[in-house]
């Protein structure tokens, strides 16, 4: 009994239950539509695990949404709802594309500069949201929604501009090759590299058939750093104090408004980093005309919530999300069921995550009953 109660209180338990419900609801939807859920999930599983390159692609897909999720989770801890991660991602992509195209430096300088410019752009954009809230009291959700659209049109403006538009395309020029953050981009295409890879099938599949890059590593490092900042530093304590009760934080002398702006600067930088890693690490290394949002930021919201706003949790939730998105494509290819079943499934998981307050409550009830029995 004690064990069950303890288990139910762990946050991970609720998350696992939510994920199970996601699969359950997706099965019901598939059954109702006349498809075999077992086959569909088999296809999903194979689409993720059956080849090394699939796994590599899942990680590539997971990297940006993990980073935007860390951005959202961090802001959430600091009491801010960063629905603007989408916009911060977009301006990050613009900045890193422009800087990566305009600069012609050796990689050792070029890569950091390109990434930093993406982060800086995202930070400024996020900071603006924080500033508008701190200075004028404008709800961050409102400014975020507006600025997301401004970012989208700004991106399209840059794509169409004379200086950056690549003729006969719907995109800008790509960044210089010295900005690339793929794993061993030059070696893997050299004679020596190709000769080596011919003997190592596994590696060659990952290196040659996917854009394996440092994006996911960046996401893991960022998540760890944010965890450290939040839970092992004075500054992080201030952020969390403002997040959990800003009146109390203010009374105890914490500068609430300054913390708001700083938190949004950091959150924006994380979303900008997500974009910079995508631009430098994956084809086509440039921005294209956006007809609608690409959801890199919005997916981060879902991932952050699945992770219970824990920065470390975002890594695993990001992988799960990336796996579902990537593997989900094979459901349509192999079973014929609409891919959107994955969206329904992810939505259901998030929905049940929202409901997880019941699980600890259930634990309390179990415990009380246990005590009564003991008496």
């Amino acid at each position, binding site marked *: 009994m004690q064990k069950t109660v303890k288990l139910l209180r762990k946050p991970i338990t609720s998350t696992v239950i939510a994920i199970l419900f996601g699969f359950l609801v997706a099965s019901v*939807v598939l059954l109702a*539509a006349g498809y075999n859920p077992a086959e569909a999930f088999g296809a999903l599983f194979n689409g993720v695990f059956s080849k090394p390159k699939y796994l590599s692609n899942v990680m590539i897909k997971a990297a940006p949404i993990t980073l935007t999720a860390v951005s959202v989770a961090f802001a959430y801890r600091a009491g801010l*709802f960063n*629905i603007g991660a989408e916009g911060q991602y977009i301006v990050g992509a613009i900045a890193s594309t422009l800087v990566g195209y305009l600069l012609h430096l050796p990689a050792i300088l070029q890569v950091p500069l390109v990434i930093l410019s993406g982060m800086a752009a995202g930070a400024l954009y996020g900071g603006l949201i924080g500033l*508008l809230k701190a200075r*004028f*009291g*404008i*709800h961050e*959700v*409102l*400014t975020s*929604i*507006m*600025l*997301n*659209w*401004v970012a989208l*049109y*700004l991106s*399209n*403006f840059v794509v*169409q501009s004379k200086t950056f538009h690549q003729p006969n395309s719907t995109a800008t020029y790509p960044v210089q090759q010295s900005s690339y953050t793929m794993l061993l981009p030059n070696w893997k295409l050299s004679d020596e590299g190709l000769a080596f890879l011919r003997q190592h099938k596994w590696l060659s599949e990952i290196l040659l058939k996917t854009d394996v890059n440092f994006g996911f590593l960046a996401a893991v490092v960022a998540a760890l750093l944010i965890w450290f900042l939040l839970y092992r530093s004075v500054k992080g304590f201030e952020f969390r104090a403002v997040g959990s009760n800003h009146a109390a934080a203010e009374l105890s002398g914490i500068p609430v408004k300054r913390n708001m702006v700083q938190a949004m600067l950091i959150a924006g930088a994380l979303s900008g980093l997500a974009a910079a890693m995508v631009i430098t690490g994956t084809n086509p290394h440039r921005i294209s005309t956006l*007809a*609608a*949002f690409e959801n890199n930021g*919005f997916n981060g*919201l*879902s991932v952050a*919530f699945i992770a219970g706003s824990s920065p470390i949790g975002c890594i695993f939730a990001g992988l799960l999300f990336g796996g579902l998105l990537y593997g989900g494509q094979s459901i349509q290819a192999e079973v014929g069921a*609409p891919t*959107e*079943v*994955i*969206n*329904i499934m*992810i*939505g*259901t998981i*998030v*929905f049940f*995550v*929202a*409901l997880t*307050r*019941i699980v600890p409550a259930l634990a309390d009830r179990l415990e009380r009953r246990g005590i009564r029995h003991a008496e």
Partner: protein
Amino acid sequence: MLNDLSLLIGITLMYSAPLIFGALGGVISERAGVINLGIEGMMTIGAFAGAAVGFYSQNPWLGLLAAGAAGGGMALLHAVASVTFHADQTISGIALNLIGPGLALFICRLYFDGATMTQPVAHKLPKILGDNQFNSVTQNINVDVTVPLALVAMLILWFVLYKTKWGLRIWAVGEHPAAADTMGIHVRGTRYICVILSGILAGFGGASMTLAVIPQFTPVAISGQGFIALAAVIFGKWTPHGAYGACLLFGFAQALTVFLGGGKAPVPSEILAMLPYLLTILVLVLFVGRSAAPKADGEPYEKGVR
């Protein structure tokens, strides 16, 4: 001149109608103390249900009803989560934004040969002046019937909230549920009704896109209107008339971009397209300022908890 003016008015009204329904949905839900971030998802499912039923039944009014029902059904999920299970309303709303479009596209593929868009409906919702308008000015202001319907919806909601016993109860539940409870108001019931109504309105909003503005559902028919409606709720300080005004302003800024976009202004169209959003922020900075949400907005009500 008269032609241009009427065109501007016509486009403004056309763009704002779907937003108004969505925003009114947001107002009623949040007035009762339940944050509804799922408006976008409810509008999408409504947009699909409206277009699909409108296509198969050949009756746009049936489509509109179906849209309301679909939106209301989604909202019921939100109500169960946030009222009965005290769920985190922000997260639950975001979940609906994933489930709504997912479900809409999934069902769409099943009923429309694997396509993510429906066939165009045979009959759209009628225009206020009927079909045969040959004068360009009357043609311009011959808006969809959803435009006056949106106005009526706003007036009714305003009347209910400010002039009736019912409205007072909704205010009480949203501002101080514990006090409302001691006065004998059924907090949970009130919240259920308001959340479901909010979904029905959002569904209408979706359908006023796919049964009036365009004649079919497409994956991008609803792309962001729900969020803009949400912004209009905050902008309009959680009041029906405020939100209505905010949506009109938004529609006007959109109309201005369409109007100026036809080569009439020496500004790139992408920059013009940013205008509505920048204008909104500017207006907020200059005039509106601090937002005042209902006090218990987003707080689950638990009996006996202070």
